[in-house]
């Protein structure tokens, strides 16, 4: 009797799994679209000496989406240039302490001609090494002091990622419109949530451009922002996302480096606009699109400058034209219909120079449209982002966005 029962149970389970399998297959419909702003191939039109070496200093390792984005760009750059592994040295888990200086000197000792560091807090230590080794070029992502330091071999770089964020925000706004059209929410309830790391310009510029992208198609949108005080804190980011959901945010985006927020969205079925790279594999039910900085064009640029004996720009800011701002494909199972076309349209406007993210006609501070008198970066009717220095500088608190906590 028991044996028969066991057999029946086994059969039930096998059939059950088979049933699951088939329904899953049927559920899969559209999947990811082509990327509207794909990672372009690098043009390597220069000759490098045999003993050329380049070193990269990363704050964490591949488990952080921020560092993974840098490391993946290194690998693409290496493939394009055909450099060998011992010519491209990646040092991971380098803290923002004197360890960073030691790592930079170590790379110089290993024969590197160019040293690149990826984290904001690395900057003073890279500058220190740059002062000591004038024959080596030191390039630092996200930094702000290269112009002030006046060293010929120390450079800052960033990308106009606010344009990518704007495009991602556009996709978010269209999703809100779809929810309104389907009657899931009313227009006045179109509220997004945003998990940010810190309250400084890099994050503020990012979430503001994201919000303006959404607002360009969904005029009633509002947004709550919660900060975590860390670039990588799975629990804090997850809890921030859950808190935003409890405040009726119907769509979440984030500017922090763990899977905390996208994971929480997937668990709760809340659409998510990601950052730094695709989280589609882990979150197929909720992922819409992700913007990212592609660092490979900058690596290629500094290498070309070295090969041709030219000076590297003290402040370099790559945009859509350089291939520095990229988007993943759009998840058509989640995104609203027509998202791809709308994003492509906006990209064309960016390329033509007819679209300014921080056009003062589109945002107010305290119900007032700002002018050059309020902020020196506002000229010709828009805020000139990343022009004086490559790092983002937009740090105004515009109307429509509520900061839930400012302690960071």
């Amino acid at each position: 009797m028991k044996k028969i029962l066991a057999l029946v149970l086994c059969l039930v389970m096998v059939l059950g799994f088979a049933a699951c399998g088939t329904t899953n297959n049927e559920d899969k419909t559209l999947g990811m679209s082509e990327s509207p702003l794909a990672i372009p191939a690098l043009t390597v039109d220069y000759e490098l000496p045999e003993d050329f070496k380049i070193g990269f200093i990363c704050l964490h390792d591949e488990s952080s989406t921020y560092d993974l984005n840098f490391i993946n760009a290194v690998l693409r750059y290496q493939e394009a240039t055909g450099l060998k592994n011992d010519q491209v040295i990646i040092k991971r888990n380098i803290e923002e302490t004197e360890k960073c200086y030691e790592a930079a000197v170590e790379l110089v000792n290993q024969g590197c001609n160019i040293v690149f560091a990826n984290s904001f807090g690395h900057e003073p230590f890279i500058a220190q090494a740059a002062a000591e080794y004038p024959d080596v070029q030191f390039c630092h992502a996200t930094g702000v002091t290269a112009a002030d330091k006046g060293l010929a071999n120390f450079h800052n770089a960033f990308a106009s990622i606010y344009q990518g964020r704007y495009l991602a925000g556009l996709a978010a706004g269209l999703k809100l419109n779809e929810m309104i059209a389907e009657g899931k929410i009313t227009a006045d309830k179109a509220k997004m949530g945003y998990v940010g790391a810190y309250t400084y310009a890099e994050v503020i510029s990012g979430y503001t451009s994201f919000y303006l992208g959404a607002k360009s198609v969904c005029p009633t949108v509002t947004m709550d922002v919660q900060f975590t005080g860390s670039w990588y804190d799975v629990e804090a980011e997850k809890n921030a996302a859950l808190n935003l959901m409890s405040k009726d945010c119907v769509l979440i985006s984030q500017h922090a480096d763990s899977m905390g927020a996208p994971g929480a969205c997937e668990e709760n079925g809340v659409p998510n606009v990601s950052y730094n790279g695709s989280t589609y594999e882990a979150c197929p039910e909720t992922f819409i699109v992700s913007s990212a900085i592609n660092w490979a064009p900058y690596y290629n640029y500094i290498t070309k400058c070295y090969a041709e004996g030219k000076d590297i720009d003290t402040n370099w800011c790559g945009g859509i034209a350089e291939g520095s701002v990229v988007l993943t494909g759009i998840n058509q199972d989640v995104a609203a219909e027509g998202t791809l076309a709308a994003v492509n349209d906006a990209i064309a406007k960016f390329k033509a120079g007819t679209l300014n993210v921080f056009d003062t006609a589109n945002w107010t501070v305290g119900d007032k449209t700002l002018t050059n008198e309020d902020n020196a970066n506002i000229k010709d009717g828009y805020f000139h982002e990343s022009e004086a220095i490559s790092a983002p500088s937009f740090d105004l608190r515009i109307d429509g966005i509520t900061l839930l906590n400012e302690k960071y």
Partner: protein
Amino acid sequence: MNNVEVTAKKKREPLFHITKRSAIDWKVSIGIRAVAILGALVFMTIVFLFLSDENPFVLYKSMFEGVFGNSMRTWILFSNTAILLGISLALTPAFKMKFWNCGGEGQVIIASLVSAMLMFFVGDSVSYPVLVVLMLVSSLAIGAIWALIPAIFKSKWNTNETLFTLMMNYIAIQCVTYFLKVFGNAQGNQEPMPQFALPKIFGDRYFLNILLIAVICILMFVYLRYSKHGYEISVVGESERTAKYVGINVSKVIIRTMIISGALCGLVGFLLVANGSCAITTTITGGRGFTAILVSWLAKFNPVYMVLTSFLVIFLQQGTSYMGDIYRLDTSMADIFIGVVLLFIIGCEFFINYKINFKKPSKENKEVAK
């Protein structure tokens, strides 16, 4: 009859039995440890063969290159060994007393914070020698205070010192986070102030760490082995009742020892800032306050052995991280390597403390039976 008895006895006797060793020849104990390290290497070789495309022996070679490949790497190796040794030495007197001071991390961090704040707030208003003395004295004092608080609670109300010192770590880290908001820049970092660093000896800053900690190592050995205080610490550690019986004031010993322990942590905190980053971050210790617990235990609280154990840990960390970067291994591979080596070394303590007696050949058994 006899035969039946013999078979019965044979069945009952296990394959081996374990006895405690009363004493062990030092040659045998070194031999056992050597076998353990060899075992760890063999184990890791198999892991590397499965999980990496590189030849394991090439990987081992790169570990040595990462540590001894050039003079700077070697200086960093010894300097980091000195720092880790410094914290381990600081924890040791407390451990010998069986006071489980898990607060090395916090005691170091809070002293670093005070040093960095002095640099920031009074650096420009007092002369350089005054600043250095001020930083040193304040670091020792705050480290001692950070250790004193759990010590007082332990001696007065017998609170659990492990939990208490652990909690003090979090308070110290949160203090850093808080004060960085007060005097850090917009991004929450403190700009380094190398103009207030300690003077460089022989062209770099590594030598001073090594020299200072070497002196402290010798002093600590003498203090624990030959001083009256050291004897009192051992007695309290063996048995508090015995200590009371022979007239040792246990509370006094606990408090005095923790002040020494905390002040030494404070000294390391001072070195990390004044002879290191010249700024404070929450990650300034990089978990070394906890690693030091392991280093001290592995060395059985002996300051001389501690030189070896701290060297071993730093050697493995530096070597495996270089190996991982050069051959692009996953960073967790370095952690696995360190974990396996330490596991084998700790595991082999069993064979040093106990002897395994295998079942004797049956022939002998018969003879005994007859």
